[in-house]
């Protein structure tokens, strides 16, 4: 009476894709790169679908899904009620049965209403089942502040997700990585939390960074989950950072190069797995480590990055410091918000201090 279907869908994906191919000349915004990655996987794999609040005709509040419903229709691009527990759980159940949901949590700040599904179910079922049940799901979510959205709509919180075992966490900073990581996330047999900073999407209605637009190959390709990237080579100071702070760090590095200060910038791109080898490799060149992180300072990513070096090669470090969000709810007034965000000015001061010049030099 029921259709014959595989009962234990351990997942397979299509043929291997190119890994980090040449970028070419065609330019996209980060938002469009994500849309393209999702659309391409939806075209080749009918188990992929998109679900979330305002992902349909609106196209995602931060344009992560623009154009998808026009191509794939409302049965594969599904607007949900404001019921994050129910629809994230629906993604989990569908993934267990062999589908590949891409589920959007509109703001990472909203995890409070649905975290049980995320960390107790999505992330743990594979382990609890002894590897017998896979949950190939992407949970994508907007993060970050800088536009006066207040304490409940401005947080990054990637350290919170990365702290809890069982979910991979990726945080692209640019269009190329966003497409490659989204493609890898959809094709992964593990749950992947894809955290995009609103400030790197290239949106017209938010302060736009020039690095939010960049060359992206038209073909599908993957950026491997778990691999950091040196986005600027240097010899004096290592900045380990991610997401929008990569853009700020590169701006600072360019400026200080004119003064003969050579800054290496490592874009983590993934938090889980964390590319600790790349961190140690960079610090072994420079000896000076600055972690720039828009997440809260204490008990989080910045301490983890430093611990990676201290545990493996404590003798390497001649200087270490952090430019993070201090442990305070993110303020509304712009003057207050920018007093706590990891701004280029704070990053520059940290580099000067690392070089022995002191904050005021």
């Amino acid at each position, binding site marked *: 009476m029921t259709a014959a279907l595989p009962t*234990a869908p351990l997942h397979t994906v299509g043929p291997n894709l190119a890994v980090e191919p040449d970028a070419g000349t065609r330019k996209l915004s980060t938002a469009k790169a994500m849309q393209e990655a999702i659309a391409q996987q939806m075209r080749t794999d009918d188990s992929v679908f998109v679900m979330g609040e305002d992902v349909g005709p609106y196209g995602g509040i931060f344009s992560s899904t623009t154009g998808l419903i026009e191509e794939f229709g409302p049965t594969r691009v599904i607007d949900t009620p404001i019921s994050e527990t129910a629809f994230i*759980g*629906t993604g989990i*159940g569908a993934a267990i049965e062999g589908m590949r949901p891409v589920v959007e949590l509109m703001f990472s700040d909203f995890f409070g209403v649905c975290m049980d599904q995320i960390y107790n179910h999505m992330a743990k079922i594979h382990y609890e089942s002894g590897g017998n049940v896979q949950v190939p799901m992407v949970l994508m979510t907007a993060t970050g502040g800088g536009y006066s959205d207040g304490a409940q709509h401005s947080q990054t919180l990637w350290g919170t997700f990365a702290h809890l075992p069982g979910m991979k966490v990726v945080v692209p900073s640019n269009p190329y990585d966003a497409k490659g990581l989204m493609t890898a996330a959809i094709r992964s047999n*593990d749950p992947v939390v894809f955290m995009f900073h609103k400030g790197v999407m290239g949106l017209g209605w938010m302060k736009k960074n020039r690095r939010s637009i960049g060359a992206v190959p038209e073909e599908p390709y993957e950026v491997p989950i778990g691999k950091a990237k040196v986005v600027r080579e240097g010899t004096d100071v290592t900045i380990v950072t991610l997401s929008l702070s990569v853009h700020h760090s590169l701006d600072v590095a360019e400026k200080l190069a004119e003064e003969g200060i050579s800054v290496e910038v490592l874009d983590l791109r993934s938090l889980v797995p964390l590319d600790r080898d790349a961190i140690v490799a960079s610090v072994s060149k420079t000896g000076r480590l600055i972690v720039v992180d828009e997440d809260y300072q204490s008990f989080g990513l910045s301490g983890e990055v430093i611990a990676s070096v201290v545990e493996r090669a404590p003798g390497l470090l001649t200087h270490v410091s952090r430019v993070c969000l201090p442990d305070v709810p993110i303020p509304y007034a712009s003057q207050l918000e920018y007093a706590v965000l990891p701004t280029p000015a704070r990053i520059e001061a940290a580099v000067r201090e690392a070089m022995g010049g002191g904050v005021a030099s």
Partner: protein
Amino acid sequence: MTLYPALTDDMRRGMLQTMVLIRTYEEAILREYHADKSPGFDIGAGLIPGEMHLSAGQEPVAAGLGLHLTKDDALTATHRPHHVAIAKGVRLREMTAEIFGRETGLGRGRGGHMHLFDPETHFSCSGIIAEGLPPALGQAFAFQRRGTDRVAVAVAGEGAANQGAFHESLNLAALWKLPVVFVIEDNDWGISVPRAQSTSVQSNAVRGAAYGMPGIRVEDNSVEGVYEAAGEAIARARAGDGPSLIEVHTLRLWGHFEGDAQGYRTDLDGVPGRDPLPTYRNTLTAQGVLTDSDFAAMEASASELVEDAIDFAKASPTPSPANALDYVFAEGARS
């Protein structure tokens, strides 16, 4: 029109057989659980460590549901999952090995008795109240999208009906006409808090109306009542007519978990008379459907299956501590 088969005598005996198997199983787990925990009570000691929530008294829910389900249907259970797992056809040996924390268990010893996952029968559990409902929606969603008539059953206790996840799930299931059946086991107690102190309505079944779905309450822990309510609901789901809500007034025969002295419990005097197992046995006997030797054969058969599963678990290797980090991810190393 009846959308499901009328009960035959064979089916009645089959439901009783399932109830006997469940009771035999829970009694054996009870025995093994307590075997090495004395003197006193050390929750982490013994061949079966940890919390243990047994389902004695709730057999009618499982037996009445089980007849309607195939291996391809899904079922999500709770922290008290053994009865529905057995009725769903989860492999007894592997389930028992998991409860014993062995490498041969359903989860290779990583899950435990509240976290049983069997992809062969699409069975899973959640130890968090009401949080097993949303994944059942997703399983139903996948079944629906693929054009099958498979259904997902989400089982939860009456305490779960006061959780947000319950209400979100009912709304979404009804909105999308998902092939889901929500089954609430009302055993009167949320650990130590009586239902009257937790729930604003006399019957959770009325909450179905808030979401535009049928709701029915089965009284008296009646296995045949469960069979009929579930038959209606599952047929409706298979036909594409959407979800239903069933509440069964059942019985927690023993404590919330083992080691629960139940000092709070005001209804204990009446419990023995409410035990569904002798009740249903007597009913079938009085109807001439069951003989004493039939029942003895049921007990013998159940005992054989259960002791075989216990022996299998005890003889199975424990997981190697060196492999404690395996299975965090399907792909790639841990960071």
